[in-house]
């Protein structure tokens, strides 16, 4: 018997818990040559802003031990081009997709969310309240429970779409931030975004990123991400989407085990463009092996 992988994120039903993470999957269509992108639970597209954005100057990436730092600065095509050129093609491909959004001000977040609300095929809006690489990229809102309440509440009133709030790990108490998002109307929280880091070259005596600091992602951050997801799952009732360093099916299962309803796969897509589907197949194989008929029988069952 094929195990049932479907999961619910509030009112939204996904065929399986494996999604791509924003900023690591382009606009989704780029992966169509590799596999049928409609197989994923959902695709989360690159962070969209009201107007197209240029992003930061190069060098934007640097590899670190089992991870990488990025300071892309949210280069994107803007919400209008996304609506005109990308969304119809994602629908044609049969993909379930969510839009990650950011603004420099709350008004911009509201405007992007409003603009996207009319898009029937859009499954959800994920608010990036946590980008470390642009000064006004939400980090100010994501840093305190008050900021998150304000942002979440305002975007909530701007859209009827399922609303996910993506949290920054660069805070002292992530559970209280998640609770603030829940209280202000979020349908789910997703975490973690990248951890602020830095790399320098001891010979040239320069920072390796033009932006000096950047966001750390990849296997290096998984233990931090797992701990934060576990903490947040114990605190909030809304679904939690686990993100951070997931490379394999076992990594994904660990996040489900501590209570995540779904996962997003980011940096792993770079080395292996098939990562998301391999993880999906691996989860299914594991459930079969364990003779579990429903992923719900495994999720959140961490033993004491």
């Amino acid at each position: 018997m094929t195990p049932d992988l479907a999961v619910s994120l509030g009112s939204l039903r996904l065929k399986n818990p494996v999604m791509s993470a924003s900023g690591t999957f382009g606009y989704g269509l780029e992966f169509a040559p590799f596999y049928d992108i409609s197989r994923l639970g959902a695709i989360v597209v690159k962070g969209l802003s009201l107007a197209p954005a240029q992003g930061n100057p190069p060098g934007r990436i640097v590899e670190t031990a089992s991870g990488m730092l990025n300071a892309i600065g949210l280069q994107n095509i803007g919400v209008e081009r996304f609506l005109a050129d990308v969304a119809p093609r994602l629908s044609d491909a049969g993909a379930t997709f969510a839009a990650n959004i950011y603004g420099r001000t709350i008004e911009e977040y509201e405007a992007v969310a409003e603009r996207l609300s009319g898009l029937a095929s859009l499954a959800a809006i994920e608010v990036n309240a946590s980008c470390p690489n642009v000064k006004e990229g939400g980090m100010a809102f994501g840093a305190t429970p008050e900021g998150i309440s304000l942002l979440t509440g305002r975007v909530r009133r701007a859209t009827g779409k399922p609303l996910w709030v993506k949290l920054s790990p660069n805070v002292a108490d992530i559970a209280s931030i998640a609770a603030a998002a829940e209280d202000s109307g979020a349908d789910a929280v997703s975490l973690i975004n990248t951890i602020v880091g830095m790399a320098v070259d001891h010979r040239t005596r320069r920072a390796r990123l033009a932006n000096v600091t950047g966001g750390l992602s990849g296997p290096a951050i998984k233990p931090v991400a797992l701990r934060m997801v576990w903490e947040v799952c114990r605190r909030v009732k809304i679904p939690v989407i686990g993100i951070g360093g997931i490379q394999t099916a076992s990594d994904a299962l660990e996040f489900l085990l501590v209570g995540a309803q779904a996962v997003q796969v980011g940096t792993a897509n770079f080395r292996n463009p098939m990562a998301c589907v391999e993880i999906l197949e691996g989860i299914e194989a594991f459930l079969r092996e364990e003779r579990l008929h429903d992923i719900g029988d495994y999720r959140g069952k961490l033993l004491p």
Partner: protein
Amino acid sequence: MSPSRMRFAAGRIVRNEGHGEIFYRLEASLPEPVEFDPGQFAMVSGWPGNDPLLPRPLAIFRAGQGTKGKGTVEFVYKVVGRGTALLSGLHPGDPLSLTLPLGRGFDLGKDGRRYWLVGGGVGFATVFPAAAMLARRRAEYEMFLGSRTRDQLPPKEWTPGGSAAGRVHRCTEDGTAGSFGRVTDIVKERMAVLTEAEASRLTILACGPREMLKEIARAAASLGAGMQAALENHMACGFGVCWGCVVALREGEKTGYRRVCREGPVFDAREVVW
């Protein structure tokens, strides 16, 4: 021939041998053959574990048919850091992960043009496939290869083109092989004696250190010669989804960031903000 659709392939190493002190030539078998445009590349990894995490970009040096409907692909690389050092330690039979073919290669579209191919250092690995194609078409071309010293020039038997090969000029900065001097200077000296008509018929295809590309681009622009430059940058994905590899390009009055892995690696040198 148009390049194959990009794919992620589980390859297997057939050969991975050192040449001289610094170059390795790697051949891998692929489940299916690939076709590529000269200048296109692959993202390559094969070492176990997550460190280094990211695959490394390498120009496709050759690709062909293997046995039983399989394909083969070859690369030439220089060991410069951890990733290439780990690659050099892999053996025949070891698995190799490949995403390929990637990027936009050289545009060899126009008949009646004359080509100069310039390879600085390991940049020859990117221009040799262009030479092979031009030789097949019996097009008119010459090649300029430069390096610091003798062992850093490619072995002569690697030169593509057979009997249809264009002339090859070799030079070293220390004079240990070929003519004495930088390839940049040698190309510029040759350019200086071209007539206006000759320059306007010339297209330079170049890959090498950025300084070399920049100087040749400036000279080519002032003479009205065309130039296509294959650029490098640090890459995470190699197929356009991370926006990590951008360079500044001129677009009319403004400049914009374009991805080396997708809009490049080969760019019209006049558009690059050097």
